[in-house]
């Protein structure tokens, strides 16, 4: 499945990239699966996206839970809890 990844704030800095296009393998069905798949890349991914960290995610620019199913060609963003205002 083709996914357009976006990273913001401290996650972008930690990973050293703002966006990336990937083709996720068959078993990756949810955003949580995707996060796990990226963690398997090893450092810095395993550290920045570590499961103990509170990370928010968005699917096609809408904040969603990690259990949300991915969609073909979706834009998936990972970022820290927001601090605007």
């Amino acid at each position: 499945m083709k996914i357009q990844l976006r990273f913001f704030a401290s996650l972008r800095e930690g990973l050293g990239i703002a966006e990336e296009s990937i083709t996720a393998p068959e078993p990756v069905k949810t955003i949580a699966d995707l996060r796990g798949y990226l963690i398997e890349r090893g450092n810095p991914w395993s550290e920045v996206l570590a499961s103990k960290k509170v990370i928010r995610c968005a699917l096609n620019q809408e904040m969603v839970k990690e259990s949300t199913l991915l969609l073909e060609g979706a834009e998936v963003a990972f970022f820290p809890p927001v601090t605007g205002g």
Partner: protein
Amino acid sequence: MQNDFIRIQEADFDLTTEVTTLRKDDPRVGAVVTFVGTVRDLNDGSQVKGMTLEHYPGMTEKSLEEIITQARGRWDIYKTLVIHRVGLLMPEDQIVLVAVTSAHRGEAFAACEFIMDYLKTAAPFWKKEDTPEGARWVDARVTDDTAMARWNL
């Protein structure tokens, strides 16, 4: 007629100009409530020399539209304006403006506070502070989540 205005910009804003524009030619209005957030020089025990605000273009506008939709579902309000600055800001600079017009103050007060509380927990903005100890990303506050929880979304 457009009733909701959302602007993400680097430039500063002028409260009087914005309010004048928002309620122009709208004699239904009996109440205007505004909130302005500004940069403090102290946060979490550190001097703040400046801060950089980042956002998620596209999602930011969508999330603010959703917040305003929710507010309209709860209160009888006429017009709304949200301006949020991004980029480099200094202590005392204005960061955010929320303005709401209504026939009566109760609706405008509540809607303005709701929009601000919701913005702080749902709109994709992130602050990075420049302190004497170095640059650091601001952590989300539990108090913001508590403020949001009051509204029982």
